[in-house]
């Protein structure tokens, strides 16, 4: 057996100075895992504190720092980079038949930026934390907060720059390095989704950078940019912030949609239904997503006419998401559906994203939003999409490509069990928040009126279940690294160039540049067989090594 990208060189230096996209993906994965558990630890303390209406597990100031840390870390250091920089980095070149991303050194540089941003943020934590909420609203963040706003904002600024660099890299890669015959409409949907995500990263992130820069300028140099005493307008900050942060939610969900498309097609052994529409939907979400940011400001003191426009556009942006949901559903029709762990995660995504997305429609309706904005209803909405949706999809993708990345097979039993526990624990944690949110429970509340306690207790119990489900993969995936059976090149019998390479791939992805001659997802041949099981590949993945 020839050396894989993992074994070719093994020194620490060969990792830290690598320009191999696959190794960089691993580096990112390590960082992201650390941040996920850091954010998760904060969530754990939040949930413990909220067990009782006026508990004193932590102080009010510490509570505020905890949810800020949780939001900042989970959004910028976990979910925004999660799929693009790990699965995206690993798979993008493989899927389009390239040997690496367009600018390999820049790719490594981007990881160091990520690391630097992360260190700054951790530093702000060590130095006492930040208490502004992940939204950094002025004038609280500029004039009133006594916490380390500057360090944290700089951390986010730097990691934003890392985002931009990664986006630029991926855009150039998709445009310039597709293998011969890999036309745009032969690209796997995952590639499309990463491409769309990159566009959003490149065009939205600079605006976040500016909004944070202005906050820093006001705090450090005393320039009264948002200071109402001097006529500055705090709402301007909100416009700038949400111009980034709404598109950013699509940075967080588009790659997940890509992952799910791959998994569902492979597990249902069916061509993705309405491929072209899926592509239009991805691009539509990416572009229209830039036009709806004002829906975070319905009660902020914005002009009612602007609210109307933003509400309208928010309903429009829901339509491409609907197209995707229906197409995934239709892909199942007449399939040969297997229920391996990745599929369980993908189906979990489908349900939870739909529910979370539909509650987005509630929020886009102005009268409802006036009532529920800044309540736990919002908290539930975005956890449904981001945790129920994207994190599930991330886990699905991780399991799906685990054999490719590591060359090992994980325990299917434990993986399915974890998937199911995760789904249950998730609903248990966050569904109560919809109810108490509609009853009026404000978010970011350290103490709360006693009538909400039953819901909070439910949520906290659910969170325990959820924590177990998130810790489990650490164990069984870790175990598989050493003891798992070796994986063949294509354990799922899936289409896609990445499966034509050995598992794990060699350092140079393709000994010979592949030529593409057909559309993606040609699973139909199986499906044609009118349910005759004999012509099928074995039910589960093939566990024997290929070579």
């Amino acid at each position, binding site marked *: 057996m020839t050396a894989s990208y993992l074994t070719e060189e093994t020194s620490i230096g060969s990792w830290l100075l690598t320009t191999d996209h696959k190794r960089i993906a691993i580096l990112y994965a390590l960082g992201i895992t650390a941040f996920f558990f850091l954010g998760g630890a904060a969530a754990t303390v939040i949930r413990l504190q909220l067990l009782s209406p006026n508990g004193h597990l932590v102080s009010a100031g510490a509570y505020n720092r905890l949810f800020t840390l949780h939001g900042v870390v989970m959004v910028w250091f976990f979910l925004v980079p999660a799929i693009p920089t790990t699965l995206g980095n690993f798979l993008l070149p493989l899927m389009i038949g390239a040997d690496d991303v367009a600018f390999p050194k820049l790719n490594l540089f981007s990881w160091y930026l990520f690391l630097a941003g992360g260190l700054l943020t951790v530093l702000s934590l060590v130095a006492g934390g930040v208490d502004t909420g992940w939204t950094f609203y002025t004038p609280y963040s500029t004039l009133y907060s006594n916490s380390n706003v500057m360090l944290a904002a700089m951390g986010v600024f730097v990691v934003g720059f890392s985002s931009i660099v990664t986006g630029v890299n991926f855009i150039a890669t998709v445009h310039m390095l597709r293998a011969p015959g890999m036309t745009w409409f032969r690209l796997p949907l995952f590639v499309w989704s990463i491409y769309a995500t990159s*566009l959003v990263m490149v*065009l939205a992130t600079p605006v976040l950078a500016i909004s944070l820069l202005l906050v820093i300028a006001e705090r450090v140099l005393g320039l009264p940019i948002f200071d109402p005493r001097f006529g500055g307008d705090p709402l301007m900050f909100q*416009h700038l912030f949400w*111009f980034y942060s709404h598109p950013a939610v699509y940075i967080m969900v588009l790659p997940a949609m890509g992952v799910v498309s791959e998994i569902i097609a492979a597990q249902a052994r069916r061509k993705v239904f309405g491929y072209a529409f899926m592509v239009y939907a991805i691009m539509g979400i990416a572009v229209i997503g830039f036009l709806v*940011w*004002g829906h975070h400001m319905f009660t902020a003191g914005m*002009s*009612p006419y602007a609210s109307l*426009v933003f509400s309208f556009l928010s309903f429009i942006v829901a339509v491409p998401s609907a197209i995707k949901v229906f197409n995934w559903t239709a892909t199942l029709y007449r399939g040969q559906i297997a229920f391996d762990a990745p599929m369980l995660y993908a189906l979990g995504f489908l349900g939870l994203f739909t529910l979370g997305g539909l509650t987005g429609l509630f929020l886009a309706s102005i009268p409802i939003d006036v009532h529920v904005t800044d309540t736990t209803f919002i908290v539930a909405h975005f956890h449904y999409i981001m945790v129920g949706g994207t994190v599930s999809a991330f886990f699905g993708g991780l399991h799906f490509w685990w054999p490719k990345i590591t060359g090992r097979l994980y325990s299917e039993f434990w993986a399915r069990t974890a998937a199911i526990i995760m789904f249950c624990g998730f609903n248990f944690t966050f569904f109560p928040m919809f109810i108490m949110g509609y009853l009026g429970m404000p978010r970011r509340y350290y103490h709360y009126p006693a009538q909400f306690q039953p819901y909070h207790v439910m949520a906290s119990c659910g969170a325990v279940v959820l924590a177990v489900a998130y810790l489990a993969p650490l164990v069984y995936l870790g175990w598989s690294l050493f003891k798992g059976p070796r994986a063949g090149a294509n354990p799922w019998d899936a289409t896609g160039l990445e499966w034509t390479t050995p598992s794990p791939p060699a350092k140079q992805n393709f000994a010979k540049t592949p030529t593409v001659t057909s559309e993606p997802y040609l699973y139909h041949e199986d499906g044609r067989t009118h349910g005759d099981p004999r012509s099928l590949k074995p039910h589960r993945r093939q566990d024997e090594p290929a070579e």
Partner: protein
Amino acid sequence: MKISDRDREIILVPVLVWIGLMVALAVTVTYAFWPHAPVKVEVALVIAAIKAALIAIVYMRLSRSPPLLRLAAVAAFLWLLMLFGLTFADYLTRAPG
């Protein structure tokens, strides 16, 4: 010394554009300081736009770039339009005062 085609491309075109830019600069400064001239801000911005376009199209070679690169430039412009358009949808329709 006679000007070859190459020199024309290398030197003449950039110099002509530079002359255009300097003239525009002179015009915009003069107009700005002209007492009581109307629509000053608008004129200044239009001239700035012309200068920016000259730089982008000739110096940055948008006129000869592959469509893809032009698309990137156009995208930047469109996205700026969204940013300004919708933000001012708020500010211009706020209650008077």
